[in-house]
């Protein structure tokens, strides 16, 4: 908790120092798939993250995971339950999993939330039409940070 507070201040500091947002194509993963550095330098908002995790066109994490802290109905069971995720993973690892879990779990079904390609026949959201040339990632950099902040509250 204390360490987090210090971290948060450090990030807030970085933010005031005109932190440049890291683009999806510029993200660097460590060997284990983790990402140490915040994508935005602005501390994540766990409440916003909870919304992103429950909302269909956004993270919709509950499509595949049970998260008991969320009230969203029909939580899926494709992936493991996320209860206690913060006991199992560090912040850097969670960031890596949300950005593109394929670096952590080879071949996983979990979609990359902050990824712009390469994809096979990318679509324009759920329209079935071809994606625009500049395909935005599913989540913004700040939404990723918000989800990570939310995941860090999941302790057992």
């Amino acid at each position, binding site marked *: 908790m204390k360490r987090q507070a210090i971290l948060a201040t450090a990030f807030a500091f970085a933010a005031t120092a005109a932190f440049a947002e890291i683009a999806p194509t510029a993200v660097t993963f460590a060997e284990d798939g983790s990402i140490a550095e915040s994508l935005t330098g602005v501390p994540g908002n766990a409440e916003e993250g909870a919304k992103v995790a429950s909302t269909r066109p956004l993270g919709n994490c509950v*499509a595949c995971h049970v998260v008991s802290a969320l009230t969203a109905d029909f939580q899926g069971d494709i992936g493991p339950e996320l209860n206690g995720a913060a006991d199992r993973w560090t912040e850097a690892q969670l960031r890596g999993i949300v950005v593109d879990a394929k670096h952590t779990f080879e071949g996983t079904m979990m979609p990359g939330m902050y990824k712009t390609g390469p994809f096979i026949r990318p679509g324009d959201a759920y329209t079935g039409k071809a994606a625009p040339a500049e395909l935005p990632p599913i989540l913004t950099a700040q939404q990723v940070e918000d989800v990570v902040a939310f995941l860090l509250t999941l302790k057992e």
Partner: protein
Amino acid sequence: MMQRMSRTTFAAAAALMLGFGPAVAGPAEDELVVNDEITITTVAPAAAHLEGHLDTVYSGWLFRTEDSRAMQKDDFENPMFIYVERGLEAWDMADGSEGKSCADCHGSIEEGMKGVRAKMPKVNAGGALWSMEDYINSCRTERMGAEAWKWNSGEMKDMTSAISLQSRGMPVDVAIDGPAAEFWQRGKDMYYTRYGQLELSCANCHEDNYGNNIRADHLSQGQTNGFPLYRLKDGAAVSIHQRFVGCVRDSRAETFAAGSQEFRELELYVASRGLGLQIEGVAVRP
């Protein structure tokens, strides 16, 4: 209804009604006997070509709730019979510049179309892979001098429904060797390709996760032996290619068109994953 119940009450009620939730895993234990007389095989050992992928194949019917399963057990409850009735009428009706009906060339639908659905899609005399819709349109344009029907039009679904019913209870019987082999292989490649921004393949949902829940959806093996089928959610009949379009779109991908070469090849491969099951034409889904 939704507004009057609290969200949790609704969720709990819905979970009870529809059997959702992590507690439900795998296919139901139920037997499909239609009109108390036609028993249809909904579980079978997987075909040899699925070795290492699936041991057992299950009809999508087994993954649905008791309510929608019941609708398919009784033709009077099955909304697809509205389509079937219209298709049977169209079968006998002359159309086009030649003044001919389907019956003029094929005789009664019961005899002329028996077993046809079970073999679709198949390679035609010219070496092209055709779905049932292609055969129907070829008869209309070449032999009747009538206009082609659009793939997902009401007229087309009426006719494919009436024809499919003539194979009800017959085993899926698609050919995957000889001239069909190259089409089948391309369909297989598609099945395992991870399309779209979500990078999902058919196999991700229907091979690796059947029996699991993706949000409110209880995943089946994505078999096609029940098509064309009635989707209560859409309040309409759905063709095989229409279902494929929906699944590819849900992967945040650019879909292929209904009737495209790609989807005919995929249709052949997916049909072959159902070898061992029997044709249900015409099924009901939520």
